[in-house]
């Protein structure tokens, strides 16, 4: 059964169409890149897929069941979101921030158990943040805060990860490290949908691509077929050339 399905989905924002009649099926094991120009609606679409904003028409099914009918806490155990923008009204510690991912797994009076702590510490360790556990999150660098937000989603441990620019602010090492980890978690039976700006990272790490052209037009499918110089040139409105080196494809903006 697909983790997430879109049937004839229309999403609009401020009178602009993000996608028209989008049919999409996301299976466990798949890693999707969401690509397109600035302002084409990647974030809007991710929020719609997460059930955080109303859709214009069509259906979204999470594990075969209409997204809108999921109880909120249960939905948060099945689906996790990484936001592009974060702002906390009050500073909190790194470990506390990672632990917010356990919220949907806990009852109202239930405190985090040592098992929950272990899950959060594993996620922090995977994001190379173990040494910063007791730091206030507003003293972290931009890249560290990004990895902390990723650690919170990993602590949430949902089957479907919807990530808005997960490699934002990350240095080269951490870009590759994070994407390798996400690819591996897809390999372990989860599914990942992430908006990216680097076409070459999408080529290297994603099995599937959803390319938004603007005005509701889109292309989706296997990364190998969707990603080529013609589709990318059209999507970005900029000439892009494909080059091959040692069997690895790369795209170069001219």
């Amino acid at each position: 059964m697909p983790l997430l399905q879109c049937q004839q989905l229309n999403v609009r924002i401020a009178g602009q169409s993000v996608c028209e009649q989008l049919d999409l099926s996301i299976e466990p094991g798949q890693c999707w890149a969401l690509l397109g120009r600035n302002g084409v609606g990647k974030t809007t679409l991710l929020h719609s897929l997460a059930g955080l904003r109303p859709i214009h028409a069509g259906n979204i099914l999470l594990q075969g069941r209409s997204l809108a009918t999921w109880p909120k806490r249960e939905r948060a155990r099945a689906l996790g979101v990484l936001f592009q923008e974060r702002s906390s009204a009050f500073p909190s510690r790194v470990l506390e921030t990672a632990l917010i991912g356990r919220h949907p797994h806990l009852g109202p009076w239930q405190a985090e158990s040592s098992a929950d702590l272990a899950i959060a510490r594993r996620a922090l360790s995977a994001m190379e943040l173990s040494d910063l556990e007791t730091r206030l999150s507003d003293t972290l660098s931009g890249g560290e805060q990004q990895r902390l937000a990723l650690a919170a989603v990993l602590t949430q441990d949902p089957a479907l990860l919807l990530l808005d620019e997960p490699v934002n602010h990350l240095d080269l090492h951490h870009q590759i490290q994070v994407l390798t980890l996400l690819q591996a978690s897809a390999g372990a039976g989860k599914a990942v949908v992430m908006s990216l700006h680097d076409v070459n990272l999408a080529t290297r790490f994603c099995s599937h691509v959803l390319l938004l052209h603007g005005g509701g037009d889109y292309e989706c499918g296997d990364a190998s077929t969707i990603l080529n110089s013609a589709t990318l040139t059209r999507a970005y409105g900029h000439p892009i050339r494909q080059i091959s080196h040692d069997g690895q494809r790369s795209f170069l903006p001219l």
Partner: protein
Amino acid sequence: MHLSDTAAAPGRRRKPHLLILGGIAVASLLLALSIGSLHVPLPQLWAAIHGAGIEPYRSVVLELRLPRAVAAFTVGAMLSLAGALMQVLLRNPLADPYVLGISGGAATGALTTIAVGLSGAWIGGAAFGGALLSMMLVFGVAHGSGSWTPTRLLLTGVVIAAGWGALISFILVMSTSRDLPGMLFWLMGDLSGARQWLPQLVLLGVALGLCLPRARDFNLLARGELQAAALGVPVNGLRTMIYIIASLLTAGAVTVAGSIGFVGLVVPHMIRLTLGTDHRLLLPAATLAGGSLLVLADTLARSAFAPTQLPVGVLTALLGVPLFLYLLRRNR
């Protein structure tokens, strides 16, 4: 330092902190019963509480000081809890129980009744009515179109509070010199007439009972509506609940004691600076600390310059400002 302990094991360190604050609360209440124009020694205090005291200690403790001390504790606790709730609702550290105009509505009601020559229960009733009117006005205007972001709610509240402020100035200017002292005491916050506390205590209990099971939801709401919604928090319902509870707490507090400043703004921050931002600890801790601070401030207000009684609002600021600055400095 203990800050890192709370972070290292969330949930493990709550009870000792609350026990200490509970101890401070009891100590502040005992102090309030003992200190005053008539000093009540500890043995007599103990006997009076157990109903076996001798006069005049018994009646001073049980009939004069106890109701006022309990009222002070309840009002301080309500304001402090309401402040913590407003700060998370508006996601703004500068928010306090009065920022959305509740106290302005209450003051307009109270001052109007004083101006027309009514007194006693009329003042409290009019204050509560004014607070409720302001609460519904802000909610109706801010919520009107269906979307109520913290900014929209804050702006609506601030504008309506400014409107009340103009009305209050108008009433003050037009009133006679006979009414002015009473009006000013009301505006600065004053517990000398405070005898009513049972309805307030019940309201406080209900508020805590509703908020504590949702304290972890509040932690997420402070991180933003979208983040909270993505983690399964019913954001709209929760925000409406917080607004209503915080408003009723504020309305209940100003009805008893006028608009006592400072407690609702600063006590939640004091707790955040010392014990962290987890609302599971913050809400009960701020409740206990706010109550204790107001009991101590009121005891000082009535005994420091006796027989002159100061408005307690002056004392809350005098006690709180240096304490808060010290905590701010220590945490830098």
